[in-house]
Each structure stands twice: as C-alpha cells, then as structure tokens.
C-alpha cells in the first residue's frame, strides 16, 4: 500500500514538473512570436561601471521601445569565440554580438555577419578614426559592424634608468635607430656578477601575444602579411618586408641581446612587473597598463613616462584597434538590433561630451575610435595617456584574414617563440608559417 502511495506521489510530482516545463516553454514562445520582439544580445562587458551603463541603456531603450525586449547573455573574451561559433553552426546564434579582431575576421569569413551598409549613416562612419573604419569595412567595401571599446599600445620607459644610463629622460626614442641605441645603453649588468640584470626593452610574447606583437614588427617594415586580392586571401609572409620585420624582432633577443629570452614567458602583466622591478627599462604595452604601473610601483611616481611608439625602419606602426558590435546574418530581428545600436551610438550620456557608446568605452578605460571621443579624451585624460591619443591616426589593424587566428594559435605563437629562443631560424620559421597559411587559404 505504502509503495502504491509513494508511486502515486512520484507520478504527481513528475507530471507537475512536466507541466511546469510546458507552461515555461509556452511563455517563451509567446515572448518570441507575440507582439514583443525578443533580441538576443551576447556581450563580454564585465567592468562594473561599464555594465551599469549598458544595463541602464538597455532599460531606457526598452522603455522607449516597449515592443523590443533585449535578453542579455554575458560571456567572456575567452569563452565567447567558441560559444558564438557553435551557436552559429547550430542555428541558435544571438542577434547582436561583440567581436574582437579574430572573431570578426572568422565570422566575416563564413558570411555570418549582417551587411549594415544601408543602415549605418555615412556621417556616423565618417566620425570614426581610420583604424576603426578599416575594422568595420569588409574586403568588398561593405560595412558590417560598429566599433566599440578598443585600446592603443605605446612605449613605456623608465626615466630614472634613462638618467642613470646617461640618456635624456625627456627624450624617449622616436626612430628605430634611436630606440636601438637607447636599448643598448640601458642593457646592463648592474651588480657586476657577469650576468645582465637590466634589459633595454621588453614586450609580451606569451601565447597569443607572440603573434600580436610579431604583426606589429612586420608592419614596422611595411609588410602586407596577408592580403585580399582577386577574391581570395593570399599569404605575403614570404615577402622581404615580413622577413625583415621578423628578423628585427628576433635580433632584439638574439643579436643585440637588449631583450631577455624570458620574454617568451611574458604576458602584459609579467612585462609590467619586470618594468616596475627595473628588469626592463622600456616596454611596449597597452594604455590600461598605466594604472597597473602606478599601482604596482607607487615609489616610481614621476620616474617613468609614456611616449608614442618609435617608428620602425620603414614606417610608424602603432598598435590600436577597436572591438566591434555586430549583427548576425542569421538574425531575423536585424532592424530591432540596429535600432538599439542607433540609440546606443546617438544618445548623449551622463558624461558631458560623450554618447552612451563613448561613456560605455570610457568606463572600462578603453576608447571609442571616434573624433568626438578623442576630443573628450584630450581634455580629460591624464598626461600619461596623451601619447596614446597622439597615435590614433596612425594605428594599424592586424590582418583580417579569416585563417589568421587559426594560423597563429596553431603554429604562429609557438614558432615566434622558437625563433626568439633561437631554436628555429627566421628563414625556417617564416617558411613554415607561410606554407601553413597558404595551405589554409588553399593557395
């Protein structure tokens, strides 16, 4: 008897559960097919101040547009690429997403991003800086996104160590030759034990940093890296400019010995620690690091500075590019998604002189790559950040080749590290990477 009662109770509980699920799915169904348009928005914003602005913007937008409901999915830059890619493949993609350069290139490559050319007014596009325009423009001239939070990289240098080395602390290097001269003068055995303990220059080479900075060295020598021509991507890694740029990078460790071999284990934070500890006197790092240096080395106040990155042997190549907002091609609610972006980019924020998009980028310590934002930043940013703003018109973006990320994460990062360590020659390393990229392109 007891067993029967128990089984009855279990059945009732199961039925209740099933009916609960059913009513839940009915509710969801109503939300998507009824009057209200439900917009799926996957983003990677995590800084509390930035999230607050985003939440407020969504709430205000929904109040003005009661027919649109924005459903947020919060992700991270680590998880988002896989999450979005699998959702695209399974046909469950969100409507609106945030992309970084590699995601943008890959999704663009498979035609997953919606063409916004007819939606984005030309005045808005014109207000963006060259690197931002380059990011959102496809190979055939279409616009498929809007730039958002991005960052510039510049030169950090220790004024106190410059002085000790007999260099003028107010004159950071501007050309490649000046840089090399400074780096050599700053490379020292400070305690006389026969081992160099202060290097002239450091940059992050761990994991994905390896390829990001490698691209920068190649761009300094005018390399094209990978170009879109005749309807297909083509590797230019075997060009002389690419070889010169790679050799330039490797020589800093192998030939001139002005950078430690341990750069291969440096991420942005490790190189910052080395900079603060005086193990490297100059470093190439992002704008956000100004805060970290101040925090990690309070005693260094006034003893370090920032400067526009020195020019390469062929040209100035500043690292600086935005992430983007993109609407997915598979979305059936493109108009609603665009309506939100339009609101986000055109509505003034609580911060005087900035739109919501500008305030959103500013809240995370990043930049919106627009004239208006730069004007605001010039007036409000501290002196240490001004050199980063001086670079904005000459910023270069990494290759937007859809296969680039695959090349770098599979082979590029490790090969760059091997070349720097000297276990693989530049000729051999670059040859392998060129061959792999061509194979990926089907060249």
């Amino acid at each position: 008897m007891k067993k029967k009662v128990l089984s009855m109770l279990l059945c009732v509980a199961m039925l209740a559960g099933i009916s609960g699920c059913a009513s839940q799915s009915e509710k969801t169904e109503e939300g998507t097919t009824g009057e209200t348009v439900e917009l799926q928005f996957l983003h990677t914003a995590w800084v509390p101040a930035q999230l607050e602005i985003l939440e407020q913007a969504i709430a205000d937008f929904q109040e003005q547009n009661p027919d649109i409901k924005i459903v947020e999915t919060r992700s991270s830059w680590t998880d988002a690429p896989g999450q979005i890619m699998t959702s695209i493949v399974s046909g469950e993609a969100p409507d609106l997403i945030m992309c970084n350069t590699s995601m943008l290139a890959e999704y663009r490559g498979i035609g997953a991003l919606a063409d916004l050319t007819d939606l984005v007014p030309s005045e808005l596009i014109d207000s963006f800086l060259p690197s931002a325009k380059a990011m959102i423009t496809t190979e055939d001239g279409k616009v498929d996104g809007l730039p958002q939070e991005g960052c510039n990289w510049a030169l950090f240098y220790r004024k106190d160590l410059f002085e000790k080395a007999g260099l003028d602390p107010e004159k950071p290097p501007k050309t490649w030759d000046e840089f090399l001269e400074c780096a050599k003068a700053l490379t020292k055995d400070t305690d006389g034990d026969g081992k160099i303990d202060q290097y002239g220059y450091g940059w992050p080479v761990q994991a994905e940093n390896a390829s990001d900075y490698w691209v920068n060295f190649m761009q300094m020598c005018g390399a094209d890296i990978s170009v879109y021509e005749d309807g297909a991507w083509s590797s230019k890694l075997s060009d002389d400019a690419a070889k010169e740029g790679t050799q330039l990078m490797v020589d800093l460790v192998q030939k001139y010995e002005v950078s430690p071999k341990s750069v291969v284990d440096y991420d942005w934070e490790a190189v910052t620690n080395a900079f603060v500890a005086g193990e490297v006197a100059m470093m190439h790092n992002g704008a956000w690091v100004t805060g970290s240096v101040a925090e990690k080395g309070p005693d260094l106040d006034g003893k370090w500075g920032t400067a526009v990155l020195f020019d390469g042997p062929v040209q100035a190549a500043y690292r600086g590019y935005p992430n983007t907002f993109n609407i997915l091609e598979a979305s059936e609610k493109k108009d609603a998604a665009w309506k939100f972006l339009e609101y986000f980019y055109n509505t003034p924020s609580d911060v005087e002189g900035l739109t919501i998009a500008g305030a959103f980028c500013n809240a995370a310590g990043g930049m919106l790559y627009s004239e208006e934002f730069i004007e605001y930043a010039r007036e409000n940013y501290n002196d240490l950040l001004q050199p980063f703003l001086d670079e904005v018109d000459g910023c270069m973006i990494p290759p937007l080749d859809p296969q680039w990320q695959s090349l770098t994460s599979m082979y590029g990062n490790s090969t760059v590290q091997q070349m720097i360590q000297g276990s693989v020659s530049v000729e051999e390393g670059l040859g392998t990477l060129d061959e792999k990229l061509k194979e990926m392109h089907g060249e």
Partner: protein
Amino acid sequence: MKRRLKTGMAPYLFLLPCAILILVVLIYPVFSGLVNSFYNENLIRPIAKEFVGFENYGKLLKDSMFLDALGRSVVWTIVILIFEMILGLLFAVMLNKDIYCKKLFRCLVLIPWVIPNAIAGIIWKWFLNESFGMMNYLLKQIGLINHNLAWLSDEKLAAASVVMVIIWKSIPFVAITLLAGIQAIPSDLYEAAKVDGAKESQCFRFITIPMLQNIMLITAILTSIWNFNQLEIIQVVTKGGPGEATLSLPVYIYRLFMQTFQTSYASAAAVMMMIVLIIPCIIYVRKLLKE
C-alpha cells in the same frame, strides 16, 4: 508468470536511469566524435561538410606537431608514473609509521590533490617565476644556484617544470591509496617474518611490495590515464609554450578544436588519443574482472 517477469525486469529497470545517463553523457558524444572524425568539418571554412573517410587519420599520422605532442604525452606519463609511484610509496610508508601528529600529516599530504588544477597552476606559475619566484629564491639561499633559472621560459626547464607540477599533484592520491593498501596487510605476516629474523628492509621487500602489487597496478593505471589527459595545469602554467616545449596531446587537441575550430580533424586526434588510452583501460578492466 507476471510476477516472475516483474522480478526479472526489476534489475534492468533499476539500471535504466544510469544507463540512459551514460548513453547521453558518455556514449553519444564519443560516437558523435567518432563519426565527425570521418568528415571534413572546419567551422571557419564555408565549405559543405563531406565524408572523407580516413583522410584526417592519414593527415594526423604525417602531422609532426601531432606526433611530437603524442610522444611528449607518452614520455611525460611514464616519467610522472615512475616518480609518483616512488614518492607516493615513500609517503605511504612514512605515514604508516607511528609518527607524531600522524593524522595531521595524513591530512596535509592531501592538500595538493585537493587544490583545483587551475589554482595549483597559478600557484606554481608564481612559484617558478624567474624573477620573483620562491623556487629560485630558495635554491639560491641553499647555494644550489647562483643565477635565477628560467623555469618557464627555457624550453627544457619548462617541460621539466610542468612534469614536476603534475607529479606534485599526483603524489597524494598515490600515497593515500597505497597507505590504505599497506594498512590492509595482515600484521601477522610481519610478526612471523620478524620471528624468522627478517630485517625491516626485508619485510618491505618481501611482504609490503608483493602485497601492494595489485593496488599499485590499479593506481598506476588510473593516475596514468588522468595525467595523460592533463590539460588545465599546462594551460595555466605554460599554455603549451615556450615554442612547443610543453605542447601535450590534450593541449594540441584543445587548440585544434577550441581555437581553430577544425572540429573533424580535432575529433580524429581525440579518437587517436582514446585508442592510446584504451590500452591501460583494458588492462585495468581485465584486472578488475580477474579479482
């Protein structure tokens, strides 16, 4: 008749939920991966998914990066196995002695095993830092080195460092399992041996070791499978670098699948890894069945 049928069906009905769970969570993904390995799916290439037979497997056998990663994983697993068994046994024997605060030490030895892999990786990353790490500081203090060693940026040292961290992580499990095994050995065996004039070392060699053989084999098989599969520690400590010095097979597959979206090729590599791992699994299951 009905009652007999009911009684006959009962065990299967009890097993059903578990069987369904295993089918959905284990068998289906493995089968799906196996099927996918015979296709040419690459999520960032807009081409139609086609059946390519054993092409991916053929490519893998010519892929030097795959072969190196496989070789590295096999060698590391063997090296780790040797060290963890020797050190684990040493700890087990020590913890079996009547030492002061025995229970406390038994708890302390478990710490590395209890710490999550990612956290352990971060701790060791700092510990092995060339400039600020405790390892170089301690070695310098005791006079073993004059200059800081590049534990994570030198290709040879980085591989050794990763192996060392995995050994550190595995020892507690081996020690505690072997300790349980030692405690299960009947004390009369030792008493009889002592009556016959056996020394402590002889007792260890002729009683402890033979009596632990079975448990040692099972522990060795299990830890080898876990260590071969180790991904988190390597990802956190070196991310497979510098160069390819610490690129193990799981890291290689992770890169293929999660970073370059070569899903079919990655599936083929995962199937190859599964085949390699099946060998110790077969030994393990046969051992269990025998017992």
